[in-house]
């Protein structure tokens, strides 16, 4: 591994350097993350990442509440991709109990997941553009996300912390009116992507700012444990939906997008940005198929009122979240409360690679890199 400079945690300025304390309150740290930068005017000499500002002990909380009661907490793990954490936890407990999920519920989960993926990716690509100084594309994205929020609000009552999935199924069925609304949204969304691309993705200044910046090699991406779009943008072809199939994903037709370095190098900021746009279009495909093929039937499987798995039993699940391979591990101690819940998320690793990439970068590039990694502060700490 390349030598990483010694992090300057004591905030003592050595000769010719300036310490810049970026965060926890900084507009482009997207939440409360902190980076201590040793600067040589505009160029970063060294960066040390500091986190823990949003640690709420969610996994520990899980040990003192019943199995079903933990579901709302999973929403708070990742506020932009609550549906995936819901899904991961529900699936892990279902595997623990051996509960069968009805097919309609599985399709509903796909629709909900992919809608959430679009919403989350919009925020990511929007914040890349916003951190590069273009405000308009971000707000155009927010407008589209608002439609998703409205749809999901009508569907399950919540706009951000959905708490939609249940152990053994989902909480609400899709009404015919809502189905039409989702299809209408998808039609409009493809137009939006076109408009967005014309406005910013093919903008010369934007390409100059993104292409070849913050390149992550495939080896580094695997070595640092990056997951999801960040990993794929570096050219590693891995998607949990295809490689470790779950739910009804094997029955659906979609492509796994991989970074191709279309404007610069494979794994640069532009690739990560562009990959998310491609993934959103794949999500559109998935939702259309799922709605079309959705069978009628119940939305909840047969789950005992009191969940009491036998002592020592454990299970895990892997879900392709908006930020990648979301790993949930649950273990039982024979009571109504879980013994241990662990959720492995991607932002922690994504944050760690910033330390390696930052030295030698300009501060404006750091902001672009940081935004393109799609780091969600609560997800790093949980």
């Amino acid at each position, binding site marked *: 591994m390349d030598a990483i400079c010694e992090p300057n945690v004591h905030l003592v300025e050595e000769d010719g350097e300036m310490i810049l304390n970026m965060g926890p309150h900084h507009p482009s740290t997207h939440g409360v993350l902190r980076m201590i930068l040793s*600067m040589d005017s*505009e160029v970063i000499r060294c960066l040390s990442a500091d986190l823990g500002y949003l640690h709420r002990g969610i996994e520990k909380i899980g040990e003192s509440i019943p199995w079903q009661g933990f579901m709302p907490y999973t929403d708070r793990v990742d506020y932009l991709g609550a549906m995936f954490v819901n899904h991961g936890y529900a699936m892990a407990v279902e595997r623990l109990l051996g509960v069968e999920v009805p097919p309609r519920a599985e399709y509903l989960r796909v629709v909900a997941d992919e809608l959430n993926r679009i919403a989350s990716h919009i925020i990511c690509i929007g914040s890349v553009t916003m951190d590069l*100084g273009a405000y308009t594309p971000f*707000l155009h994205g927010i407008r589209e996300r608002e439609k998703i929020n409205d749809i999901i609000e009508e569907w399950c009552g919540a706009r951000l912390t959905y708490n939609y999935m249940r152990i053994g199924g989902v909480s609400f069925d899709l009404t015919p009116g809502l189905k039409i609304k989702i299809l209408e949204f998808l039609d409009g969304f493809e137009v939006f992507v076109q408009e967005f691309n014309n*406005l910013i993705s093919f903008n010369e*200044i934007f390409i*100059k700012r993104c292409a070849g910046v913050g390149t992550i090699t495939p080896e580094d991406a695997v070595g640092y444990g990056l997951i999801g779009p960040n990993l794929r943008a570096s050219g590693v072809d891995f998607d949990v939906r295809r490689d470790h199939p779950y739910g009804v994903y094997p029955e659906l037709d979609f492509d796994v997008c991989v970074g191709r370095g279309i404007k610069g190098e494979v794994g640069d900021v532009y690739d990560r940005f562009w990959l998310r746009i491609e993934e959103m279009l794949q999500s559109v495909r998935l939702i259309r198929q799922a709605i079309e093929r959705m069978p009628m039937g119940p939305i909840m499987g047969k789950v005992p009122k009191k969940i009491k798995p036998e002592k020592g039993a454990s299970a895990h699940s892997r879900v392709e979240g908006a930020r990648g391979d979301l790993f949930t591990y649950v273990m039982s101690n024979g009571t109504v409360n879980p013994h241990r819940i662990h959720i492995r998320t991607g932002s922690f690793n994504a944050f760690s690679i910033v330390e390696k990439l930052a030295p030698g970068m300009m*501060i404006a590039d750091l902001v672009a890199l940081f935004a393109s990694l799609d780091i969600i502060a609560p997800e790093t700490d949980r």
Partner: protein
Amino acid sequence: MDLTFLLMTLLKIVLICFVFAMILGAILTWGERKLSAVVQDRIGPNRASILGVTALGLMHPIADMLKAFTKEDFVPAGANRFLFAMAPMLAMVPPLVVFAVVPFGPGPDFVIAPLDTGVLFIFAIGGMGIYGATLGGWSSNNSFALLGSLRAAAQMISYEVSMGLNLVGIFMIFGTVSLSNIVLGQGQLLWGWLPMWGIVVQPVAFILFMTASMAENKRAPFDLPEGESEILGYNLEYSSMRFALFFLSEFVEIVVIAAMAATLFFGGWQIPWVDPQGTAGGWITVGQVAAFVGKVVFLCWVQLIIRWTLPRFRYDQVMALGWKYLLPLSLLNIVATAVVLAML
């Protein structure tokens, strides 16, 4: 000194600097928000009202002003208090002084000081604007603000060079640096029908001038000194009316750029084919002043649209653009103009 002359000049200063520039600047703060709202599919400012009259949100500049005046005036610890207080004034005054030589209408009645060295005066005074941003960031004892002020200084000095060189072609064609005479010169007709506006005879210079002057004004895509997502700007530690002064100076500078571009490239107060010597008087003169104001407003709008469309450059890209592209291009433009003039 003649008392009437003194009073007239004072009246002109009040009318042009404070009524026209300041009010247009204040309206532009509204215009920017409303325009960005339209661009971004939002409603924009619509709440502030006086007795229920919202006037499309036009009451917001007034509300902002009241807010700015009543907020706490905060000086950070370790700041150089004198320079910290001076900086907003240094930022605000030069753009207002520049209006002294801008002809708002035909004849010496519509300009505060009809200097023969008009454009040179503008550059001399406009160059002072650097001090506001630089000292403001440096004196506030903040690393982020310091970075912002360094960026501001480097960027403004770099772009001032090509900004000035862009206009040399105009001087060569009209044979003068006096703004009033340049406007008169633009009343001529090319081939008997085409108004000889600056943009017609110097189209490259116009684009370069607008680029350089937007960089000079520190606005997107050149808003690195403020780069709110990176370093939060040289005016980071400012609050209350001092911040508002920085803010307003930026908008007055938009008006300055628009006024300069209108004067140098869009024929100033000239209405095409109507009274090119500006001697008609009466309603035609009123129309000419209105034409000038209209051109200024249009060019302000152009700047706002650009600001809400483009992303920001990186520091080294701005420097490269200024020195490697803009400067050689403006020099080439001078040479090309000279060759064409020599051949004619």
